[in-house]
């Protein structure tokens, strides 16, 4: 799809604007988006991933300033670096790794929007993550065991059960 503004570059941003119940669809390229900053709610001129994110985060606290509860959310502070949730939602970036802990409540909806998911399933640091890795391995083995049982492969299932027991014992000892 070609950008509806310049008609030359490919459209990479697709969004819908609703004004007084009237729906308008936009398909534009980043270049034109930057030039026509007013097209995108919440951005003026400087268009970046952080301003988009900050837009998303503002939705979280859409009622900010109106109720006491909303302003407390904005005031939540990371005790390690001192950043508040309000600052985080403006900057679109965390101040330190502990922010994840202090702002945890507000993060699931954000991660869901950005990544479609809230939990990590990838690589785990070897040194710090031996337990996590073993636990994941156990989960995988359990799944395989269920499959084996469903397919009436009881010998395989028994082998898997023994492996699971062995790993569970290892974790318990650590």
């Amino acid at each position, binding site marked *: *799809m*070609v950008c509806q503004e310049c008609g030359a*570059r*490919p*459209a*990479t941003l*697709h969004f819908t604007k609703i004004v007084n119940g009237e729906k308008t669809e936009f398909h534009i390229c*980043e*270049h034109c988006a*930057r030039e026509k900053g007013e097209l995108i709610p919440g951005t003026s001129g400087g*268009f*970046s*991933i*952080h301003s988009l*994110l900050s837009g998303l985060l503002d939705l979280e606290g859409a009622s900010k300033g109106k109720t006491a509860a909303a302003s407390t959310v904005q005031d939540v502070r990371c005790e*390690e*670096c001192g*950043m508040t949730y309000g600052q985080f939602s403006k*900057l*679109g*970036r*965390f*101040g*330190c*790794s*502990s922010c*994840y802990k202090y702002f945890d409540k507000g*993060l699931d909806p*954000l*991660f869901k929007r*950005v*990544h*479609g*998911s*809230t*939990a*990590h*399933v*990838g*690589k*785990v*640091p*070897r*040194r*710090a*993550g031996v337990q*996590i890795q073993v636990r994941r391995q156990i989960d995988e083995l359990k799944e395989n065991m269920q499959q084996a049982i469903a397919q009436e492969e009881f010998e395989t299932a028994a082998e898997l059960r023994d492996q699971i027991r062995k790993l569970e014992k290892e974790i318990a000892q650590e």
Partner: protein
Amino acid sequence: MPNLRFTEQALSEWMRSGGSHSEIVISSRVRIARNIVHHPFPLLANEEQAEKVMDVLAPVIDENQATGYGTFQLVKLDELGELDKTVLVEKHLISPNLANDSRGGAVLLNEDESVSIMINEEDHLRIQCLFPGFQVKEAWDRATSIDDIFEAAVDYAFDDRRGYLTSCPTNVGTGLRASVMMHLPALVMTQQIGRILSAVNQVGLTVRGIYGEGSEAAGNIFQISNQITLGQSETEIIENLHSVVIQIIEHERNARQRLLNDSALRITDRVMRSYGILKYAAVMDLKEASQRLSDVRLGVDVGILQEPSISVLNELNVKTQPGFLQKTFGDKLNAAERDMYRAKLLRETLGTTH
């Protein structure tokens, strides 16, 4: 001032060999973002805190010269002039972000410039591996093995549920950004590119210009990368990108074939005309240079032209950038002078081939 062979030469050693599908895929890159626990992210860190991060991270590679990827040199950004920083960005060895806000920033570069480890960019550590052609899996293997070296020496900020904790919420989880730079002139000419790019967006990938976020796709070069870093494993991310890129390669090949079948004369004319202009023009702006170089690259790839070599074209893509031009011809060139010197450089480089 450190000895900077990295900014003297336009083409990194790693770019000299082709890699697979090199007629369409220019390069593959993997970047992983990591942070150390109990240190504020660079966004908030003061000079002293940034220095501390550098003191923790830089020696890890110093002491590990046996990484198998050659000797590394530590380049502190504060010690570089603006022009050298621009050249490092033009060569994709550092991000524009690190060049612009280099407070306490540094980069560890290996000899062939295939590994670039940024310190105090948006995250404490960004490990980047570059490969020529389509080798995104190889780039990931290398990046993860360097990650293991760091992980053995420092405590990463990692959470059982959220994964690797990064400064920006868009990188959390794997911290992995895998990207592939593709030359897609036939898809642009046949106006299929928009449809394909919007399809790409729908499968969790994004398309950007060659210098990353916010930059335009100059010379029909597009950078395709994963958008999602949380909830997918590294293998899934790499495989997803891999399979989409394979499909785009297929589409580009078909479009090239169709162009050659249906409008051979028109394409040949376009390629030859661009080659002629590159060889003889007296003034050339960057946009035109990128477009003409793209035409010539297409001509070489489909056999209309026998020369210049792809490696000369890769080199010219970098050498015609503003920073590199100024590095070569004098650091105070205005835009009009740059256009003149760009044309001169192109004439001299391409004029020697017949």
